[in-house]
Every structure is written in structure tokens, then in C-alpha cells.
């Protein structure tokens, strides 16, 4: 069974530029999560989807971040415009139980 796929793996952009991350969850997993992990910290939830509905986006900085999960399968997370403080690893995870979550390899974003 294929795991969670994320792309790109690495991205370097200048501040104020837009950036987008893509995630394809494990087949059959209805719940999809986007996390941000800063250096030396654990993952922090940005948004959770149940199928195509965003059921928890309370931690998503909505002035610059947006996400979508069309058709309830793959998802895109966008930042526009990026700021220096957005440099982090962005992790996507999926679950079919609501408890064990399976993570992708992440996208390491560097904003210069």
C-alpha cells in the first residue's frame, strides 16, 4: 500500500512570493491533516479535513494561508505571500480511524 505522498520535498522562495504544497493521502483515508513543524518542536495542526469538508481550521492563519481538498482525495496548501517566519516543514497526514495518523515525508520550506 502506498503511503502519503507529498510534493515538493524542498522549496526555497523569497519572502512575499506564493508557494503551494500538494498531498495525496493513503487510499481510503477520509481524514486529512496539514501540520507545520518548526525546528525543535512537534507538529502543530493547521487544518483537518473530513472528506472534502474542513472541520477544524482554527489554527490556520487565514490571512495568508489557504487549503483545499477537492473531491475529498488530494489536497493543496497555499501560502501567499510567504513570510520569513513561515520557514518550517509542512507535513500532511491521513487517517481512517481518527487516532493513528500516517504522515508523509513533508515539504521543507525555506523563505529568504
Amino acid at each position, binding site marked *: 500500500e502506498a503511503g502519503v505522498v507529498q510534493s515538493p520535498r524542498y522549496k526555497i522562495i523569497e519572502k512575499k512570493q506564493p508557494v503551494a504544497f500538494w498531498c495525496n493521502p493513503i487510499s481510503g483515508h477520509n481524514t486529512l491533516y496539514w501540520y507545520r513543524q518548526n525546528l525543535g518542536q512537534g507538529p502543530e495542526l493547521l487544518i483537518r479535513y473530513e472528506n472534502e469538508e474542513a472541520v477544524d481550521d482554527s489554527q490556520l492563519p487565514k490571512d495568508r494561508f489557504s487549503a483545499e481538498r477537492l473531491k475529498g482525495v488530494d489536497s493543496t496548501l497555499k501560502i501567499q505571500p510567504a513570510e520569513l517566519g513561515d520557514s518550517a516543514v509542512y*507535513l500532511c497526514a491521513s487517517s481512517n480511524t481518527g487516532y*493513528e495518523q500516517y504522515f508523509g515525508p513533508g515539504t521543507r520550506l525555506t523563505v529568504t
Partner: protein
Amino acid sequence: DQQVKQNSPSLSVQEGRISILNCDYTNSMFDYFLWYKKYPAEGPTFLISISSIKDKNEDGRFTVFLNKSAKHLSLHIVPSQPGDSAVYFCAASAIDNNDMRFGAGTRLTVKP
């Protein structure tokens, strides 16, 4: 607010000995606890979990202990192997809320 805390940023043990990683939590609503292992440049991988109705769960060399009165859990790895060297994250969630909270992680180094 950091609801899940891993107070030891690093731990070093000799191969063959026991590794004990600790985690404390503050939210009494948490009822499911997980440990994830993370290698460099990879996403966290699920290792072992425990429900609040249990105080111990064992899977091969890995055992998780839960002390609800102390709001404390620990992961025991015995015997430790060099391949266990990784960052270990403790995570917790509540049954009515899929919002999983992670600790900051403990870097385990197992020396040959």
C-alpha cells in the same frame, strides 16, 4: 499552551540496554496516547499507542506505560538497537476531538 511535554530533548543509551522516554500531559480530556518515531528527512511514523482504559501496551521491544493519575506516560525500548536512533514524539488526543497534540520530541541515540 503546551499540553504535551517531553522534558528531555535528548537521551543516549548503550546498545542492548533499556531506553526510557518520558512524556507528561496537562489535559485530562486526553484519552488516547501515541508514540511516533522520526528519522531525518522523513515524516513521523506511528510506533505504538495506548488507550486511557489501559495502563500498559506492549509490542515486541516497545512498551508504553500510562499513569493517568500522574498524567504521565513512558515508552520503554528493550533491548535498544542502533537502528532505534531517531526523534521520538509523544502525542495525545481526546475521543471527541481529533485534535492531536504533540510533544517537542526526544532525540534518542543508541551507541553500539
